[in-house]
């Protein structure tokens, strides 16, 4: 086997592994959420399928495969089919630049843990890829030809693009500290210095809030405001197409948690990671699980925002705070010379 085929095989295997990790992450995030929410609300949660209900996500998936899929008569068929894929795909593609570790030995071959750790435009890549998901939501709302779906789609689009500004600005302070757009360099910068959430605590809080709004999580879950809109932009979707939207939301929770951990919580860094590189993925997974737990905890605690307050909060409070954080970080670097 020559070098080129080896490299291509390695890339295909790594891509498949990351996609499978995202899918398993999606399945067990739903399980984690249902169990954790149940505990918060003093219930037990799913515990029948398999030991401790561990097979519940599998049962749900199989059930959805055998459900009838409806396509409304008046829907725009092609856009209606395209929208779910367009919502789900970016969530997994984001994982392409998240580093899972440094170099490791794998059956006598040195491989890089992560798909493209040192992509020199890593952060811009994350920003642009996450924006694609907005197209999926607009298309879903419009192609359904249903007034509630249309309203839900418009609302979540306006929400996502408003919070994307605060998100984009909150990417800046870690870049300034690390001096690079590549996520591998940002992790290296944290190994040499401190985990960035310590010097950049306000930025990491703004980032986390913006991520909650980006993935349409409670308390920003406008698309699922059942009392106002039937089910938002995915009202007309059923069966596996609905599953794709659901997957998009949860995989995005998973991958944005990975991005948050990489930027602020040290990524794969942890004790002994230099000696045993295979610990990197384990540390990253632990940090992702902590972030997911925080998101679920917030869902179990806070009521939903009213829509006008949500927009006001995003534009009038979050955006100026994010801008001030950038200026403060600039001053901090030039005064203390970090």
């Amino acid at each position: 086997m020559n070098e080129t085929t080896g490299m291509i095989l390695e890339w295909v295997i790594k891509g498949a592994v990351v996609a499978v990790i995202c899918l398993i992450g999606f399945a067990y995030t739903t399980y984690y959420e249902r169990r954790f929410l149940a505990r918060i609300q003093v219930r037990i949660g799913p515990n029948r399928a398999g030991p401790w209900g561990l097979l519940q996500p599998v049962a749900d998936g199989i059930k959805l495969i055998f459900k009838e899929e409806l396509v409304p008569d008046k829907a725009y068929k092609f856009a209606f089919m395209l929208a779910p894929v367009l919502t789900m795909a970016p969530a997994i593609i984001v994982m392409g630049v998240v580093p899972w570790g440094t170099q490791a030995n794998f059956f006598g071959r040195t491989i890089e843990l992560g798909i493209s750790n040192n992509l020199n435009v890593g952060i811009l890549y994350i920003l642009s890829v996450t924006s694609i998901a907005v197209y999926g939501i607009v298309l879903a709302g419009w192609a359904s030809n249903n007034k509630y779906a249309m309203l839900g789609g418009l609302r979540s689009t306006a929400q996502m693009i408003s919070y994307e500004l605060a998100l984009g600005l909150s990417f800046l302070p870690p870049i300034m500290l690390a001096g690079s757009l590549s996520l591998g360099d940002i992790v290296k910068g944290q190994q040499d210095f401190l985990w960035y959430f310590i010097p950049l605590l306000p930025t990491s809080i703004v980032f986390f809030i913006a991520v909650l709004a980006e993935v349409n999580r409670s308390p920003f879950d406008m698309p699922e405001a059942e009392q106002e809109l039937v089910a938002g932009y995915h009202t007309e979707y059923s069966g596996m197409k609905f599953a794709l939207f659901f997957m998009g939301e949860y995989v995005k929770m998973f991958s944005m948690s990975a991005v948050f951990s990489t930027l602020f919580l040290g990524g794969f860094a942890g004790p002994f990671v230099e000696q045993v590189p295979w610990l990197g993925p384990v540390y990253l997974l632990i940090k992702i699980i902590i972030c997911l737990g925080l998101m679920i905890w917030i869902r179990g605690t806070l009521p939903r925002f009213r829509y006008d307050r949500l927009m006001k909060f995003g534009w009038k409070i979050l955006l100026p705070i994010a801008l001030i954080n950038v200026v403060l970080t600039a001053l901090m670097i030039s005064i203390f010379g970090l």
Partner: protein
Amino acid sequence: MLESYYPIAILIGITVGLGILVMGLGHWFGPRRPTQRKNAPYESGMMPYGPGTRQMPIRFYLVAVLFILFDVEVIFLFPWAVVYRELGLFGVIEMAIFIFILLVGFIYALKKGAFEWE
């Protein structure tokens, strides 16, 4: 340099394939018994009323335009943030002027009531 993009291209291919596979699973295994009522727009069991796509509030358009304005300006900050340490005092002052202009625009939009959703 281009080498670091190949694995990402492969990942995109795998992901799109996965999406098509999931759609296919539902297509092959799901039953298909459409009736006229089932295929009507869902409005909580009521008879569908009026057209599906209607005029939308102009505010959404305003938000979209403001988003494009500010997003372009945020993108301008990225190259500055990368080379911030090398630029030194010059960089700080340049960007302070830029952010000040941004802020003036923001305050103008605020005073005009662009972010009000009564």
